[in-house]
């Protein structure tokens, strides 16, 4: 067990709690700015959201965004970040950053990776060079990148896998957490989060929760989910985790997700979310709206002179009609940018609207959740 960590880089203030569900509204103070939770964090893998400038991102209401250690560590590399003074300066982003450790790439790039106790070896398809990502190396790169929240390197397996590999990964993640804590040099300016693993197995999850919550980290993430598993299994693991995790520390549910998942998982007590969905689907011509999705490629949009969402104040909805966007989606790059701006603003505000300090959580479901009827039996 390591010595207590100084948490001056993060404070969590719980503003309100739902009397029926486990939802809560908080203020999360991080080195660069305050974040209102529940919060949706868009993903800018290579240090930028594709097509969007930091200024456009700021205008969309985003308070914290993600970057990926594997990608940034390969290009431009930790050495350059040391010279420049970190990713914030490099990309001109004044608000908060969170870096994932490279763990998820074990799943997304599984064909190019090999895991041992030492770390993960990735072979780069572009230049044929190998990268050995150990817990120490991941933390070193993340220290150079300088994000406000950094993630432990965890041993991640796909949620659709079962058997001894899941237990192996869970046990290894605990050991790697300790190595990450040991290696972390910038505790005053960067918050290292632990990541709970254990697949879809309650027993393994509970072991992991027991062990990891003994470590004095500023926050916890729930990992290894949102990988195509059955939703009925997914909810159970989320609620099991939030039952166990300390209330005074933030809970980050990784890789979530679709708007309905944001509502449900906020109700289950999660504070932070990330997903490529809104930005990726924008580039394919789909906008997010209160009733679900709007495919702007469809002929029905050709003569529709309404904005994407009449209640949305994003720059896209203020200027353009569905009819215009229909003429350019998937054909002009500006269409990707316009839809990305809308989808980010929509998802960020959608998530924030689960705040229950004045309206109450069930009022939220009635006005913004639309036609969602969810019964969860845990």
């Amino acid at each position, binding site marked *: 067990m390591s010595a207590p960590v100084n948490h001056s880089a993060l404070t969590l203030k719980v503003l309100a709690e739902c009397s029926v569900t486990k939802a809560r509204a908080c203020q999360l103070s991080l080195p660069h700015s305050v974040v209102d939770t529940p919060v949706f964090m868009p993903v800018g893998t290579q240090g930028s959201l594709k097509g969007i400038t930091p200024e*456009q991102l700021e205008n969309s209401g985003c308070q914290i965004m993600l970057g990926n250690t594997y990608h940034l560590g390969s290009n431009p590399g930790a050495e350059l970040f040391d010279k420049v003074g970190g990713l914030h300066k490099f990309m001109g982003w004044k608000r908060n950053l969170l870096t994932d450790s490279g763990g998820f790439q074990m799943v997304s790039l599984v064909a190019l990776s090999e895991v041992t106790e030492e770390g993960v070896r990735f072979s780069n398809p572009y230049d044929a060079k190998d990268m050995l990502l150990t817990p120490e190396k991941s933390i070193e790169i993340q220290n150079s990148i300088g994000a406000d929240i950094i993630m432990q390197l965890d041993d991640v397996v796909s949620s659709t896998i079962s058997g001894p590999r899941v237990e192996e990964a869970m046990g290894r993640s605990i050991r790697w957490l300790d190595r990450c804590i040991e290696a972390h040099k910038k505790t005053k300016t960067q918050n290292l989060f632990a990541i709970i693993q254990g697949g879809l197995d309650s027993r393994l999850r509970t072991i992991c929760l027991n062990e990891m919550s003994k470590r004095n980290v500023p926050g916890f993430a729930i990992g290894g989910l949102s990988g195509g598993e059955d939703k009925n299994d997914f909810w159970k693991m989320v609620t099991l985790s939030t039952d166990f995790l300390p209330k005074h520390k933030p809970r980050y549910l990784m890789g979530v997700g679709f708007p309905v998942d944001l509502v449900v998982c906020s109700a289950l007590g999660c504070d932070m979310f990330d997903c490529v969905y809104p930005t990726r689907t924008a580039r394919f011509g789909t906008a997010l709206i209160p009733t679900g999705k709007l495919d702007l490629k469809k002929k029905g949009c050709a003569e529709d*002179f309404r904005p994407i969402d009449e209640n949305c104040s994003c720059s896209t909805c203020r200027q353009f009609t569905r*009819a*215009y966007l229909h*003429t*350019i989606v998937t*054909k*002009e790059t*500006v269409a990707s940018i316009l839809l990305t701006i809308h989808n980010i603003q929509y998802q960020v505000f959608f998530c924030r609207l689960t705040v229950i300090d004045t309206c109450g959580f069930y009022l939220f479901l009635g006005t913004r959740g639309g036609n969602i009827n969810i019964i969860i039996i845990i």
Partner: protein
Amino acid sequence: MKFSLRSVSQRGGRLATISELGRHGDKTVTTPMCLVFTQAGTIPHLTNDMVQKLGKHAYPVHLPLPLLLESHEILQKYSNGIGDFLALKHHLLYLSVQDSTIRPPEGFNEKSFVSLWGRSGRLNVDVDKFMSVQEAFKPDWYQALCDSDAGKVGSRKRAHKSVERTLAYLDRCLEKHKESEVLRHSCIFGSIEGGSVAEERELSAKETAKRPVAGFVLEGLDTNGPLDSVLPLCENGKKEIIQSILVDSK
């Protein structure tokens, strides 16, 4: 529209101001002026907020018709004009017949229509359709329908046809323009054709200058049209020239 020369150099270079820009109130533009290129109504890769960072004043925008033509019926229903549709209504909008960055294939224009290439392929545009598009789009400036296919370099016959047809289209466009209430704030430009044949260029310039056009578009300069012989033939000091240069896309 008012074109005011401020100075002319010895060799003919000139500085001017264009004012009385219809719906733009008391705004003016100075020339020489570069129009911002658009594709399907967007400045490639740049949203409007990003372009605004490039300059404080409203910039003039070039809208090539081919990729916008398929939106004709939509614009008729929309009724507020292309500027509003593209969120560019505060900018000076110039609608050209062809996309000057793409050389259209030769041999597809006929006596009664010109071929434009949209996303779904070839579209034949005659004067009636063309003017219907102008009324739906309501640009500030537009190039009258023209046949800019002057055939192979040195071909007199085809060059002559392009001049003749363009003048015929221009006369019909001017008739319809005059009758149109919707286009009363829009200005029509005539095109100087003739390919690489100096005599045809001269004929085109002289004849076009007799018509009540707001200005001239020099077409087909990628086929080495002789610029020197054309410029003096346009009414000196009273009208401006927009240079239209076809860039070889290869």
